[in-house]
């Protein structure tokens, strides 16, 4: 039953429940459990908005501010995507979460042979600033913040975002962008890496440093435990790996002579809402608490706001099934409830048809409505951290904290996250667990409704998003036109400047902004880095 391990007797009564993170759940919790785990209100909880922020980072939670809704959106050409952005905003969505196609994520232009068949497929194709001008047309960039799901070339996209905002007349001090920009998790779980670990982490340091100085409302990195969880880690590992990754990036900035205090306030997190409901809620509460506590202990961060764990709690993709796809609508609603009970600042939901392809307009709107129903209809904004004080939730939050710390120690022993990822330790751990979990589903030891229980035999047909091959042709034609029209001398000059900065280890961001403004392409800029840095080679993990 569910993702936890259940042991039952012959009468179907549950004898034992073990959560994925390895914590046993008791049938009944009492004040004695709080004593057992040493629970102390001031130390472990405190009021909402107070250290250690277990109950949330705002004193009044959703009362003072509804969560930001940010469905992952993008496909085909920039114009198609711009239409969908505007549609979602017109239906009450309050932020953007931009999906780029794989060639863009991998630093290839749409006309590159490597891009064949992939242009505009899982996100929109972006080759140059000209495409951003179409993608963000009529979007109020001083009011709508944008998550940019981009990693290996996040520095390029942040520079392009600044360039497009300037072009539209916005000041760089008023725009808010959150590039995902987490390469270590790409290596573990999502695979959109290009450069070797060391220069890739340096690029992240460059974006953080640049944002500290130039882009006061941007969050230059969104550490994504999410994708590691999708790849098969436990909820406790998800948080431990995310925190260890964040520390690796902080260390890069600190090594440049800055105080952690001056950069950590800009970090955000992207965490997963799939799994056992109680474990999920305890995970987020423990994560907020540990982030604040460890920032104080490791880096002596004192500023209260710099200790906030902010982020997008969403997705839930690995919980969704191809079988009986409409069940995913219900699953999504429960996952969203988990996010709300966990005090998410921002949320997004995988849509019910995503086990097939990227979502249709109807499916994306259903996800948005799920959030609106929670907040506007059934009372999730009424009071802050409504589960606080539950004997069970508080005990579990403490136990979760211990599990997360245990996992962190394993990574510390290896020498930190850069080492644990470079050696393939995390990848091995995660893929082994994914296999064991999948076996449990196939053996029926983990119940998945519609998959291994209550099955209906025949898959139902759902309306699917249609990919249009014409989009790629249009994008390639436009790229050719751009290369004819632009001032190619200025492009070459800007690329030379970028190469020099990359070689001399000066911050590349101002040079990337110059390149973007000269209409250099994503492929051209990425190739400068490919030439200087080389490419990453995966460790063999089998």
């Amino acid at each position, binding site marked *: 039953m569910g993702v936890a391990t259940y042991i039952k007797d012959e009468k179907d009564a549950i004898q034992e429940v073990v959560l994925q993170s390895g914590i046993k759940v008791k049938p009944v919790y009492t004040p004695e459990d709080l004593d057992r785990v040493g629970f102390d209100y001031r130390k472990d909880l405190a009021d909402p908005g107070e250290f250690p922020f277990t109950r949330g980072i705002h004193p009044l939670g959703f009362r003072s501010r509804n969560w930001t809704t940010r469905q992952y959106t993008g496909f085909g050409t920039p114009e198609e995507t711009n239409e969908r952005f505007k549609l979602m905003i017109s239906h009450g969505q309050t932020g953007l979460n931009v999906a780029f196609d*794989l060639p863009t994520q991998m630093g290839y232009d749409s006309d590159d042979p490597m891009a064949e068949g*992939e242009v505009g497929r*899982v996100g929109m194709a972006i080759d140059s600033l000209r495409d951003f001008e179409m993608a963000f047309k009529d979007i109020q960039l001083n009011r709508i913040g944008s998550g940019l799901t981009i990693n290996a070339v996040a520095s390029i996209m942040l520079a392009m975002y600044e360039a497009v905002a300037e072009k539209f007349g916005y000041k760089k001090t008023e725009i808010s962008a959150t590039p995902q920009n987490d390469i270590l998790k790409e290596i573990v*779980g999502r*695979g959109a890496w290009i450069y070797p670990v060391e220069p890739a982490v340096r690029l992240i340091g460059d974006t953080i440093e640049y944002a500290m100085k130039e882009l006061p409302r941007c969050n230059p990195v969104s550490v994504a435990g999410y994708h590691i969880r999708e790849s098969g880690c436990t909820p406790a590992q998800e948080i431990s790996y995310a925190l260890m990754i964040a520390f690796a990036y902080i260390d890069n900035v600190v090594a440049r002579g800055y105080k952690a205090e001056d950069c950590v306030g800009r970090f955000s997190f992207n965490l997963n809402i799939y799994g056992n409901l109680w474990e999920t809620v305890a995970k987020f509460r423990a994560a907020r608490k540990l982030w604040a506590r460890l920032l104080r202990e490791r880096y002596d961060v004192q500023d209260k706001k710099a200790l906030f764990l902010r982020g997008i709690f969403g997705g839930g993709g690995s919980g969704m099934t191809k079988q009986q796809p409409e069940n995913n609508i219900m699953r999504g609603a429960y996952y969203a409830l988990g996010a709300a009970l966990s005090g998410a600042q921002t949320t997004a939901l995988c849509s019910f048809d995503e086990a097939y392809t990227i979502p249709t307009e109807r499916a994306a709107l259903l996800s948005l409505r799920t959030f609106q129903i929670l907040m506007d209809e059934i009372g999730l904004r009424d009071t802050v951290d409504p589960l606080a004080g539950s004997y069970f939730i508080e005990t579990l939050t403490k136990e979760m904290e211990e599990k997360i710390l245990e996992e962190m120690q394993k990574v510390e022993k290896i020498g930190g996250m850069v080492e644990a990822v470079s050696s393939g330790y995390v990848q091995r751990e995660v893929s082994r667990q*994914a*296999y064991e979990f*999948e076996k449990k589903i196939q053996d029926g030891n983990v119940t998945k409704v519609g998959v291994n229980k209550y099955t209906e035999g025949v898959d139902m047909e759902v309306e*699917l998003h249609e990919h249009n091959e014409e989009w790629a042709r249009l994008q390639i034609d436009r790229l050719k036109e751009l290369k004819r029209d632009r001032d190619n001398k200025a492009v070459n000059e800007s690329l030379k400047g970028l190469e020099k900065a990359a070689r001399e280890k000066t911050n590349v961001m101002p040079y990337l902004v110059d390149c973007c403004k000269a209409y250099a392409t994503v492929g051209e800029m990425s190739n400068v880095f490919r030439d200087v840095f080389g490419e990453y080679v995966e460790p063999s993990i089998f």
Partner: protein
Amino acid sequence: MAEKKIRVLLAKPGLDGHDRGAKVVAHAMREAGMEVIYTGLHQTVPSIVNQAIQEDVDVIGLSVMSGAHIPICRKLMGLLKDGDIGDKLVLVGGVIPNRDITVLKEMGVRGIFPGGALFDDITKFIEENAAGR
């Protein structure tokens, strides 16, 4: 004497980096007694064909989550034919809508295993259909 192990090249073609499925299936094939060579991410189709020849595999399994399975499989089947190794058993898994199954079969992809396919179904299919068996 033990029967010769079935050799499988498990490949991630194209730019898609979601490899949970490929790795999980690699574990399952090993457990079923096959020799599995995993290519790693971001492989071009010609490189997959070359590896299939060099490793002298019986089976080529592709994992595609990006939706690009049709152009990728079309290219692969063409190259296998050109290289005179059209006898390799080709399977594809990943995010594959039902409507594409016929198209893939017509191309000569013999096993199609969308997300949620059972390990046993995959390994049995290989055991029954791999070349020379």
